[in-house]
């Protein structure tokens, strides 16, 4: 496995700990060798030491010195510029040498560089002949987000990928899909007979997908974020992927293309906004202003490190999405995502229709609808809100919940990190949890309309504001209120 951009945060914080934990579970192929490819000067030893320090901090199952000593002998460092053809020749030689030491001949190239380098890395891999494996072996590429910044760049990147690798050997990673609860959406829907019959517009009133972060631009993220914005950084990939899992039809089988075919149909069924006015009516963008979060004062978005003081980049998005299918006719999907909100949480909530008030709570506007919640992170699990009678002579009801926690039911070590599952899948050739080229392009096709309205010549929808530490702008509340609904309390 070759990690391009190995001196970046992702390698130490996610990729190596994922491989270490796979090793701790005894599931790591013993022949695996990991080569870090980056520009900084480092030795194998110094690279391993850096990774060890980070692994001690973040490893899910803790850090065992003996296991690390064995595991780290499989880690190597290769210094090269990404453009340097000669560096790839040396890489090929290194990989051949490792094969001689028993590495096995399969190749997994992990592109974790700045997206600007994706095309050149692909091109150089091809030029060095690294994109083709030996007879009976495979060569695959894993590409980190963002996959393009709009439809045009995503299409260009897809062309660069297809020029080097086949689609079946291409793994566009979206780590949300590797989370247990995201994987469990299909299990919940299709392995339990009670849900699918009611999973439609007859019984479901609306769906909410919320992704709240209680961080701002710490750690120098501002430079990247101010170029990307919340819509591109989160909605185009993570949230639309979650939406597709909730909204898709049952696949014919669980093969990668069986599942992804159905997801693509969802993306193609998203009702596109007609014009800037339509965008303004259905999408709220916002930046946070000065406020208080976790009991401490927080600066506004435009005062953050590496953010343009006149930035028009959104740190919060709420959008009402309509899906034009028989199943979802009249059922809006409300998505919201934002920075500097009061807590960190991601969840999907299915809001069922209210029962008619013929027996209980007559004449009141009580909150009696059933809600099924899938918590993606943290505290992964599922809960169902139901109504129950309050003990006593009066026929009054109150809501209670039935709750399933992964950590309680399967033990706190049971949930592997998303990257563990995804890396294992990429090694074993299962692309089900990775985005296909047409999925990505269709998602961008939808997002581009919003971006174009926001940054067009005229009629731009307004930028709204909310204090850091609050639950977002009032305009986002209004988006639901005008439909007679409200955001779920997270």
């Amino acid at each position, binding site marked *: 496995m070759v990690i391009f951009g190995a001196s970046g945060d992702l390698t130490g914080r996610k990729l190596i700990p994922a491989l270490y934990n796979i090793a701790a579970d005894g599931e790591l192929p013993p022949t695996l060798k990991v080569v870090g490819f980056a520009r900084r000067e480092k030795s194998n030893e110094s690279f391993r030491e850096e990774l060890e320090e980070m692994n001690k901090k973040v490893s899910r199952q803790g850090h065992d010195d003996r296991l690390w000593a064995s595991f780290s002998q499989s880690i190597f460092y290769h210094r090269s510029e990404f453009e340097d053809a000669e560096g790839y020749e040396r890489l090929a030689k290194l990989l051949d040498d490792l094969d001689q030491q028993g590495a096995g001949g399969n190749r997994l190239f992990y592109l974790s560089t700045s997206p600007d380098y994706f095309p050149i890395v692909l091109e150089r891999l091809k030029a060095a002949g690294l994109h083709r494996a030996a007879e009976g072996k495979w060569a695959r590429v894993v590409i980190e987000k963002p996959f393009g910044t709009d439809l045009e760049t995503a299409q260009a990147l897809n062309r660069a990928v297809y020029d080097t690798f086949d689609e079946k050997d291409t793994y566009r990673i979206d780590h949300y899909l590797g989370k247990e609860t995201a994987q469990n959406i299909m299990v919940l829907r299709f392995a339990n007979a009670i849900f699918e019959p009611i999973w439609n517009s007859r019984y479901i009133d609306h769906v909410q997908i919320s992704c709240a972060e*209680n961080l701002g631009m710490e750690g120098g993220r501002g430079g990247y974020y101010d170029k990307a914005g919340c819509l591109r950084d989160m909605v185009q990939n993570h949230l639309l992927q979650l939406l597709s899992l909730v909204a898709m039809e049952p696949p014919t089988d669980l093969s990668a293309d069986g599942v992804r075919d159905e997801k693509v149909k969802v993306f193609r069924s998203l009702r596109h906004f007609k014009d800037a006015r339509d965008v303004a009516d259905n999408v709220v963008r916002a930046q946070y202003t000065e406020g*208080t979060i976790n009991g401490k*004062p927080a600066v506004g978005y435009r005062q953050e490190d590496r953010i343009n003081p006149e930035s028009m980049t959104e740190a919060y998005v709420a959008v009402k999405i309509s899906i034009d299918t028989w199943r979802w006719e009249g059922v809006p999907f409300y998505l919201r995502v934002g920075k500097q909100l*009061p807590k960190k949480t991601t969840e999907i909530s299915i809001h069922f229709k209210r029962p008619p008030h013929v027996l209980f709570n007559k004449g009141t506007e009580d909150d009696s609808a059933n809600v099924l919640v899938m918590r993606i992170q943290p505290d992964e699990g599922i809960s169902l809100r139901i109504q129950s009678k309050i003990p006593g002579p009066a026929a009054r009801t109150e809501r*209670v919940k039935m709750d399933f926690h992964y950590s309680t039911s399967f033990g706190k070590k049971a949930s592997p990190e998303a990257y563990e599952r995804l890396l294992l899948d990429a090694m074993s050739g299962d692309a089900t949890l990775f985005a296909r080229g047409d999925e990505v392009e269709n998602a961008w096709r939808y997002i581009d309309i919003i971006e174009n309205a926001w940054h067009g010549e005229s009629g731009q929808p307004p930028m709204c504001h909310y204090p850091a*530490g609050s639950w977002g702008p009032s305009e986002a509340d209004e988006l639901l209120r005008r439909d007679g609904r409200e955001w*779920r309390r997270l």
Partner: protein
Amino acid sequence: MMTAQELSALDLGNEVPLRELDKQLRLLWESNEARTKASLANFAIYSERPDQLAANTELIREVTREHACRALLVAAVPDAPEVSVRAWITAHCQLAAGGKKSVCTEQISFMIAGNSPSLVPNTVFSYLDSDLPLIFWWQGPFTERWEPHLYASIDRLVIDSGEWPDPLPQFTLLEEAWKNAKGDFTVNDLMWTRVLHLRLALASAFDQPGAIGILAGLQEVVISSVEGNSLAARMLAAWMMDQTGWTLESGQTAQDTFKLRAGNREIALRFLKGAGTHAVSEVRLNGTGGGVVLTQESGDGFIHAKLTLGGTSSEVLTPCACETPAELVTERLRRGCNTPRYFRILRTVRRLLGEEGQGV
């Protein structure tokens, strides 16, 4: 603001950095697997008197014996010069299943200083258990922190109107908020709960054969309440009026004396000062056809309802176990709440407190 020494003397549990609160809560439960976490509601207590933290912790300990909940104690110091938030976590455990299980509920305590807008809801409500109802006890009179962001999340509001020095403007704020929230929260007034068993006793007295006939000849209602509980007496009177359809003639005829109209008859309503430990010590209904006397003696766990009808007397006992704040809240949480009816009765209460007109 409490000193560090005073704070450390309180049994609030471990102080944790706010950013790590969820993680520390998880560790709290993981540290002892013999404990079972139970939670059927979020129960928050808000006070702008930090010295209440100790008493409220004790109160939570008592309430959670019957009502498993995630408890959030909030001590606010709005006039502090700088914004700061401190948090503590602890668990209250009770033995269940014949002593075989330890069932626990968690308590998060916050000390919130400074007057940043919406600081309380933004900080505290991030730690709610999402799908469970929020029971929110606002202690003391409403202040400027009683604002829409706060009450928008509340499902059941608990107040004790008996602790308000000047209840009329407070009732106005309460009803405005309730209307503003489109009736999304129910109002659970502990003062209303204080007279719950008197109401039950009085209603039971009239369940006896022929007792309803007393109302036809009723001439006088006299309610005696102890110092500081005149509101309880007025709530009881207003409830009786709501039940019977009596109306209040405008204005007082004398100090603490009112004229009620029941069809074409007049009934005198008088409030007297009583003695004892119960909020309302005695209720007398006197008339030509007989009468009813309710008495609550200090130290007696029963309300005695003595009915006199046609020259014969009978007595019925009704238990009255609710006196302490913990008992009142525990009792209140067992029951649902008819808030529109509460406000309807409150209009009468306001007039009995001297407000002219029909209220807000």
